[in-house]
């Protein structure tokens, strides 16, 4: 299960409110096996044809749920992630944005001793096109079956990159939105490793952003990869943030700039796209060069 999601995935949705229900239906219509929703206090009900349970553990025991998709509101989202982890759900995908940073820091610490993999939070989720498995909120129409994988911190830029690929005649194996928050479950480097090992993926689009050092860590991994990577860093022209103290800058230092990230990616052998409108055309050029298109 290199994309963490495939035809054997059984998805439980935590937080079965309006957004959870709407996306559950889209996932099911697409072909994804959505086995249950979890809303404490509504266990035993059925909503839109989905059985509802009070706890994640019940959904695991009864339906063998092995992927959790979380729409729980931010104040309770860390709790929801930890609940899925305690039920040994192997793949936990958290869509929720605006989770307090200190909550995520504790979640991350707990997950460091766990076999579960967290994707997100503040992400669009994962889609595996070949398996018609969707655990997320991405628009399906823009995707086309193929062998390029997309990894991105930003949600809308996943769609943008996929759309450009499709228009350039390049299909996708799937996409992984790793999330835009400072603390996330799966890094860009770890997501690259998933796609490097995915037999259905031949090349990868990586979309990073200014701030932090995650792209440099990704670049370190790219050095040992066999598959070609086309990368874009959003925010090259963004004005310096109106930050208050300097502590954040000391942690990342000059490494947080687009130039530093682009340079690290180039040095690692990735093709760096500077114009966001050229992600598709640059990937086409790379595929042709490698004899993959």
């Amino acid at each position, binding site marked *: 299960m290199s994309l963490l999601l495939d035809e054997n995935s059984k998805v439980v949705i935590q937080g079965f409110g309006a957004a959870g229900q709407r996306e559950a239906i889209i996932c099911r219509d697409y072909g994804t096996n959505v086995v249950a929703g979890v809303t404490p206090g509504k266990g035993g009900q059925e909503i839109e044809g989905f059985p509802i349970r009070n706890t994640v553990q019940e959904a695991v025991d009864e339906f063998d749920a092995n992927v959790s998709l979380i729409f729980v509101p931010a104040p309770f989202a860390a709790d929801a992630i930890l609940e899925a982890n305690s039920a040994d759900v192997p793949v936990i995908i958290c869509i929720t944005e605006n989770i307090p940073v200190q909550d995520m820091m504790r979640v991350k610490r*707990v997950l460091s001793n766990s076999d579960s993999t967290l994707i997100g939070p503040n992400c669009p989720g994962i889609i595996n096109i070949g398996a018609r498995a969707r655990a997320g909120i991405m628009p399906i129409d823009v995707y086309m079956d193929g062998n390029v994988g997309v990894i991105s911190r930003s949600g809308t830029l996943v769609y943008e990159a996929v759309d450009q690929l499709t228009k350039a005649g390049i299909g996708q194996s799937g996409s992984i939105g790793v999330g835009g928050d400072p603390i996330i479950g799966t890094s860009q480097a770890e997501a690259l490793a998933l796609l490097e090992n995915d037999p259905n993926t031949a090349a990868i689009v990586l979309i990073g952003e200014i701030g932090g050092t995650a792209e440099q*860590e990704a670049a370190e991994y790219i050095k040992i990869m066999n598959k070609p990577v086309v990368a874009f860093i959003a925010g090259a022209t963004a004005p310096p943030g109106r930050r208050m*103290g300097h502590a954040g800058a000391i942690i990342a230092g000059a490494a947080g700039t687009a130039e530093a990230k682009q340079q690290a990616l180039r040095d690692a052998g990735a093709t760096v796209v500077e114009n966001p409108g050229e992600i598709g055309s640059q990937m086409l050029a790379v595929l042709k060069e490698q004899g993959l298109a």
Partner: protein
Amino acid sequence: MKLHEYQAKQLLASYGVPVPEGKVATTPEEAQIIAEEIGGRVVIKAQAHTGARGKGGGVKVAETPAEAFKIAGEIIGMQLVTKQTGPAGLPVSFVLVEEAISIERELYLSVAIDGSMAMPVIIASQEGGMDIEEVAEQRPEAILKQYIDPACGFQGYQARALAFGLGLSGELNRPATALIEAVTKSFLETDGSIAEINPVVVTTDGRILAADAKFSIDDSALFRQKNLADLRDRSQEADKELEAQDAGIGNYIKLDGNIGCLVNGAGLAMATLDAIKMAGGDAANFLDIGTANSPEAVVAALKIIGTDPDVKAVLVNIFGGLARTDIIAQGIIDAKNQGLIPQPTIVRLAGSNVNEGNALLDNSGLDLVRAADFAEAAKSAVSAIS
């Protein structure tokens, strides 16, 4: 959410951090009375959400209460311009009047979250009062760090290691460790995103004090930090940013160029700025409407963009996911018909319900420039101005 220096010091003091004696004044008369209470020399400090206040004329020493009256009169009501504020500056409605301390040593202390480590980190240096970024770059060995393991929390040895590392031994060691512990505790318990004390001062009379303080609270945690949320000073935030927040239509950022941008998602917002720059233009602002899903929200957003006098063209770049492009299109049509965006308007829609969205625009009879993709949209926006 940023706190003013005086708010940060009150918060720190409530955790037992020693701070200079001082009070806030909103009038010159109050400043004079506080100066009399303190006695001797005082420092008058403008309260505004920016660093480098001294260079902007916002921090001055008064030798007498009468001088405190005069200086406070000059500072209260000023627009404080620093390299961080931009040319418009920030309004100053009150000053902090503090005892002037006699400095023997200046140190640096901060607590922040290191995202890549997913832990809080305490940063300290003997080189306080300086540009700490420069110190970190040129002499990394002068920077001390202690990471706080979220599983077991902050430990006493960490404060001791930092205090001794800062050269604070002997009689200063105990108050120094206490100060470091108290600052760290205040950061952790209030969902801090940054607590920065620059400088921590050792006075000639052997005290150790937080002489300045910058404190910022994680916006995402304000729901459980209600007392601190009440400290927000809206006068320090731009009107249009407040307008966007109050209307619940997302995040507005003012920039220096002349193309107004309506986008969804922070990444797409940044990439749109990049594309405009690549096409030879500059954005005047952007409003990230996130997943706003009603024509009314789009109209309100376009009104905020359209009424910015710097905006000479409007670029709508939306990739619908949760946000539906037909709803966005209806909002654009309504805003145009209401005369809210008289500027040339370039629209690029993609994603959810894009056929419906484009059909609405086609049938509207409005004069809109349509773009099929990102680069074309940016080019059209730039050429609409030139």
